[in-house]
């Protein structure tokens, strides 16, 4: 049985309210917040980046399970906010957890779904017995251009998964992907902020791929959506996952455990990994979890997990809930300094 053997999450301590961002740009904060169904977003400190977040998640994951880091044969870090254009965060993570030197890895980019693409990669490597354990991380300090719609939600955070075939806490029953070349969101080389296709981001992008991947997995495995106890859809905001669930007649109760965007924002590559971590924090043995990520450009990875009794052995704090509750509010000025939106920094 191959699946998740441990996981670790991390959300920076700082939050900015959507209404505070709206105030700076002369918008109605209440209206924006309700429209997006996002109240506040997590902001990395001035000395954090997607690499430090990746390291924190990797350490949490290792700390939960009794795994010798030297047995981790591959580390993939998915991010769209890499601190270096060239020079992998994967090797920094490997060094920081003591997995060096017998380890492969790379940094992956597929907008918001690079974290789950890494999970598929290490799943394949473990299943083929190429490595004993593999680590897949999704971590971002996502940036929205000031006064752009994405600025209200682009957030910081991430999660790591160790995939293996011993002491599995959630069996990865099956996975598949639905990808097409859809230019809904991009950032050109050397550009600081991404561009997006406005209204083009919803129907032909998010919904088509999320629902496409979910239906593809349903046909492949022959399940019914009722078979799942928990469902995680990518949450670019609080609204899209609710609508995707509605289209598939999945009740909100099944989304609730992993519905974190309203209080964390969209942590891009770290979004679905964080949401899945929140579900694993409370899932009971025998429960089934459907996970569908979404990355612009565009693609969705769908997974079916089945929780095993081993979940209890790794149920150690800090939980995603603890990170969500441990927060300090900052205003737009401090946010601009932390995220280097002030030109001289």
């Amino acid at each position, binding site marked *: 049985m191959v699946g998740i053997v441990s996981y670790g999450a991390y959300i920076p301590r700082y939050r900015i309210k959507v209404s505070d961002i709206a105030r700076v740009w002369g918008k109605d904060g209440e209206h924006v917040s309700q429209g997006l169904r996002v109240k506040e977003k997590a902001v990395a*400190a001035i000395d954090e*980046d997607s690499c*430090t977040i990746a390291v924190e998640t990797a350490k949490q994951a290792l700390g939960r399970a009794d795994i010798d880091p030297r047995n981790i044969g591959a580390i993939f870090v998915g991010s769209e906010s890499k601190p270096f254009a060239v020079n992998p965060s994967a090797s920094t993570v490997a060094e920081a957890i003591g997995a060096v030197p017998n380890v492969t890895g790379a940094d992956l980019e597929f907008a918001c779904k690079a974290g789950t693409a890494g999970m598929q990669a290490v799943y394949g490597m473990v299943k083929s017995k190429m490595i004993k354990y593999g680590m897949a991380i999704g971590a971002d300090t996502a940036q929205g251009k000031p006064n752009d719609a994405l600025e209200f939600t682009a957030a910081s955070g991430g999660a790591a998964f160790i995939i293996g075939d011993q002491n599995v806490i959630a069996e990865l029953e099956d996975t598949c992907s639905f990808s097409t070349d859809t230019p809904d969101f991009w950032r050109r080389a050397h550009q600081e902020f991404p561009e997006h296709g406005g209204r083009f981001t919803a129907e032909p992008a998010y919904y088509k791929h999320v629902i496409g991947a979910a239906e593809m997995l349903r046909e492949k495995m022959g399940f019914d959506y009722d078979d799942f106890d928990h469902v995680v859809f990518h949450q670019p905001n609080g609204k899209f996952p609710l609508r995707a669930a509605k289209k598939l007649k999945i009740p909100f109760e099944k989304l609730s455990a992993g519905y974190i965007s309203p209080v964390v924002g969209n942590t891009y590559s770290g979004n679905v990994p964080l949401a899945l971590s929140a579900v694993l924090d409370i899932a009971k043995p025998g429960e089934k979890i459907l996970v569908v990520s979404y990355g612009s450009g565009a693609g969705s990875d769908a997974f079916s997990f089945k929780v095993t009794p081993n979940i209890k052995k790794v149920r150690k704090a800090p939980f995603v809930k603890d990170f969500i509750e441990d927060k300090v509010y900052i205003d737009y000025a401090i946010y601009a300094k932390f995220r280097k939106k002030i030109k001289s920094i």
Partner: protein
Amino acid sequence: MGENLPLVWRKMPERYRLVGSKCLNCGRIYFPRRKICPHCRRKGKIVDIKMPEKGKIYSFSEVHSAPPGFENELPYFVAIVELQNGIKLFSMLADSPRNKIRIGAPVKMVFRKITENDGKGIIAYGYKFKVL
């Protein structure tokens, strides 16, 4: 400003995961790492050992005038942290509100950017400590 590259690279085991030294002859533990045990000299046998990531504040200071490269983080706190094995080290404090910083406060290691070397050089990562 900026640290030289060989130093950043050489310090990675210490800064990334608190690797220190232990002398197998006398049992003394050192951080940062040492090549020889100053107590046992030639008889000493030095091996790597990982330091605990938890400890408490032994002493601290608030910095209002920063060295180059740290100006945007002002004001910040630095501390001498006493690790659970008794080793003391100097560190910046991260994410720690003023009202929680006191002598004896429990801290744990976090992984942060130390210096960015002007945005063009290598980013020096390493430990800071956070008040729990």
